[in-house]
């Protein structure tokens, strides 16, 4: 508490490494504990010969359908699916990740546009501010994903299928955080600054471009990170009720149908990587834009 400055990389790296090692250790231990019963029943007892504890541990880490696969099993499955199949093969996880990323990104772009336009309208209209904004805020307390199946049904009966419904749900999840943050950001300029624009006889449009929008950027980007993470969840969940053939969500569902535990875990790891990659991309964009702005 004495020091609030951000710790340096070196101060950070060791603790993170230790915690990660502890997680790995727990994981391996958990794999032994959770798989032991199955290993004894399905592999070791039918064989008939006696077995020692080393053999038991080795078996629990190499089960075909483990309760909890060991980390190296998940890694092996990931590596196999990433490198042993061509990129456009449905057995390659990158292909599924790309399918999910496609609907996420489309939804994210549309959602951001919608959020920014809505926020600009709300900031300039007292009526919208009072009538619409409370509903937008209240809708955040509603489990938005519950609406996913119904959106799919509606769009499906209108003849939209494939990418559009999934992007619509991702968009639906993306625009809330953007709208709320942009309203806050567009209102961030001080009164004295808006009055200065007024004395320059700047039009509303000019005030928006030159004053409001730049001051809203620091608010916009954190909300974009939240939005794209939410968009990934939306795109994955949207793949569940459509019976989609491709995408990480569909992969999870088929994995759980066929009891392919290792497959579920590698899809899970892949979705985590996708979430991290997309958030990282937005963060990099943020650094690029804000750095240029600070130089100017």
């Amino acid at each position, binding site marked *: 508490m004495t020091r609030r400055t951000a710790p340096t990389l070196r101060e950070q790296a060791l603790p993170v490494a230790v915690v990660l090692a502890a997680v790995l250790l727990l994981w391996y231990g958990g794999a032994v504990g959770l798989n032991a019963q199955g290993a004894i029943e399905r592999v070791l007892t039918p064989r008939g010969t006696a077995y020692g504890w080393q053999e038991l541990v080795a078996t629990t880490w190499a089960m075909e359908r483990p309760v909890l696969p060991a980390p190296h099993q998940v890694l092996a499955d990931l590596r196999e699916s990433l490198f042993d199949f061509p990129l456009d093969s449905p057995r390659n996880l990158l292909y599924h990740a790309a399918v999910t990323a496609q609907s996420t990104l489309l939804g994210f772009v549309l959602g951001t546009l919608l959020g920014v336009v809505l926020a600009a309208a709300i900031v300039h209209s007292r009526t919208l501010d009072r009538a619409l904004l409370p509903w937008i805020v209240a809708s955040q307390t509603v489990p938005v994903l519950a609406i996913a199946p119904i959106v799919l049904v509606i769009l499906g009966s209108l003849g939209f299928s494939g990418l559009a419904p999934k992007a619509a749900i991702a968009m639906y999840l993306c625009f809330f955080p953007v709208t709320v943050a942009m309203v806050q950001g567009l209102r961030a300029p001080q009164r004295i600054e808006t009055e200065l624009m007024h004395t320059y006889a700047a039009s509303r449009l000019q005030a928006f471009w030159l004053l409001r929008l730049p001051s809203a950027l620091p608010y916009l980007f954190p909300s974009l990170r939240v939005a794209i*993470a939410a968009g990934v969840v939306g795109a994955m969940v949207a793949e569940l009720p459509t019976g989609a053939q491709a995408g990480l969500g569909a992969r999870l569902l088929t994995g759980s149908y066929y009891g392919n535990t290792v497959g579920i875990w590698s899809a899970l790891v892949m979705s985590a990587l996708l979430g*991290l990659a997309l958030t990282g991309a937005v963060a990099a964009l943020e650094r690029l834009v804000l750095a240029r702005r600070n130089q100017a």
Partner: protein
Amino acid sequence: MSGQATRGAPWWLALAIALTAAAGLCLLMPEPGSFDDGTVPWAWRLALLAVLGLAGWSVQRVAALDGRRWHGTATAALFGLWVLYVWQVGVTLFDVPRVLLPAPSWIAGMLVDRWDTLAADFVQTVGKSVLIGWALGSGLGFAVGVAIDRAPFLQRGLLPLASLTSTVPLVAVAPIMVMWFGFEWPSKAAVVVLMTFFPMLISTLAGLQAAGKLELELMHSYAAGYGRTLRDLRLPMAMPFIFSALKVNATLALIGAIVAEFFGSPTVGLGFRISTEAARMNVGLVWAAIVVAAVTGSLAYALLVQLERKVAFWHPSVRSR
């Protein structure tokens, strides 16, 4: 913009309401599909346009009101009512297929007709999975936060990983949890625990750091020990952080439980109802289940806000509201 603000004279409000009622009675008269060739007569279209104009005008006038605290709420409420009203009238007039957009009255009817089904779903999803998972996840996050507050090493190791989890679609663990804990509510509660744990951990740690240096030194000069400082200064200071995590977690818990039910569940539960009835095109019941989930989420949020006012009434962030 503030120039539009008007004082008093809400006579036109009464007028707007009267006109609404009258127009509503007129417009609700035709039965769905009563225009045999499917086209809506011009009179009806004009009437609908007039109602839309009336709606826009009345909302604008109420929004221009200034002064009283309830004026903002009234605007939002009026807008909501108008949306419901135009929705109902539009769906009836233009005979929109129920699959596309069911009329609010039909959804309300479904809520009444199938309330026993929905009540059972509510008990299953909210009463068991959400409540237990939310309490466990938030409680664990809080306990771990307080426990590792004194270990900067652990904090530095755990915090980056905990904040990384916000970019990971944690809902995706649902199939694994179903595999481990079965189809019943424990698997859903487990998903909820996992989803709510990290936000609470991060908020608790941030909240415990919120006490100012001056206050801490004052406690020190009173010879207050760690436990005393924690109880009398730092935990109260952390309350706004903890409540914001509780509020976020309430929504996350509902989402987690509902989505986890998409991956396999007993034949009861809001998520099960939504996914199966959507697949059977029984849209009315889906919307009714969504209404139940939405009302639950909003009520939980409102309850937590009230509780926060009771607990952290002294905090500037609460007092400014």
